[in-house]
């Protein structure tokens, strides 16, 4: 039952990707897309989603839609931040590698958090080990583990938790 759910989740995602890529609604394309999605999912579902169809529940997708604008706003801020540091004649940087601690348990949650941290102001994930993430920070504001977790990961962690766990 578990692997059937995983298989279906993979097939649904592949079919959705096919629809976006062809961007038509012709019957022939849709049928061919469904057939190929089912075939390709057969090849790849074992390595794909550990949680199956539960990843596609409406509540999670709604959270993802709420999360996207927050993420884009942070990404925009990150770019203006980098632009400021690069263009400023004296380059106000204070780099360092800090450790932060996360409550997330699943691998996909940690991946999501690490990606979000990499694309947001002044931080870059260097290593994920267990419940610690090591972050290269371009302007270190707090060296302490707890404070750094709050400043770097705090703004994302509850959203990521709602989406992935």
């Amino acid at each position, binding site marked *: 039952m578990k692997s059937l759910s995983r298989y279906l989740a993979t097939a649904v995602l592949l079919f959705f990707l096919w629809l*976006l*890529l062809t961007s038509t609604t012709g019957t022939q394309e849709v049928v061919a897309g469904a057939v190929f999605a089912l075939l390709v999912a057969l090849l790849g579902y074992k390595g794909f989603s550990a949680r199956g169809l539960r990843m596609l529940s409406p509540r999670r997708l709604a959270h993802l839609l709420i999360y996207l604008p927050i993420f884009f706003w942070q990404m925009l801020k990150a770019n203006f931040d980098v632009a400021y540091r690069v263009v400023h004649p004296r380059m106000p*940087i204070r780099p360092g590698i800090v450790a932060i601690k996360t409550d997330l348990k699943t691998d996909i949650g940690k991946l999501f958090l690490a990606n979000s941290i990499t694309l947001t102001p002044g931080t870059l994930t*260097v290593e994920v080990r267990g419940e*610690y993430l090591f972050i290269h920070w371009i302007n270190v504001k707090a*060296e302490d583990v707890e404070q750094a977790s709050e400043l770097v990961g705090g703004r994302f962690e509850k959203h990521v938790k709602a989406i992935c766990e």
Partner: protein
Amino acid sequence: MTATTIIGGVVVGFGTIFLFLGGLGILRLPDVYNRLQAGTKCTTLGAVCTIVGVGIIEPGWLCKAVVVALFILLTNPISAHALARASYKSAVPLCEGTVVDKYREFGECEEAGSTAETADATAGSEP
């Protein structure tokens, strides 16, 4: 000149400005990790804006453009993470003026058999 052409052109221009700033950052910043920071963030937003802008100018391509943009958005930070980790593992030094290196402290603690939480010494400038 329709409205979509103008909006799309503005978005493409915005993206190219950030691509340029990313290149400038790679020239100016002092070490590999700081350069990766500039490179990753600016090229991600720059490429996404450029591609989506093209999609806005030609609405027929918008779906494909969004798929490509999502692909870049998902893969770019992972490549930056892999590069940063590989540089650290092959002992590329952090630049002068680096204030703290918890990762090195963590590695030393692991060799000594204790946990990272007890590490509280401040690190020097070299890993």
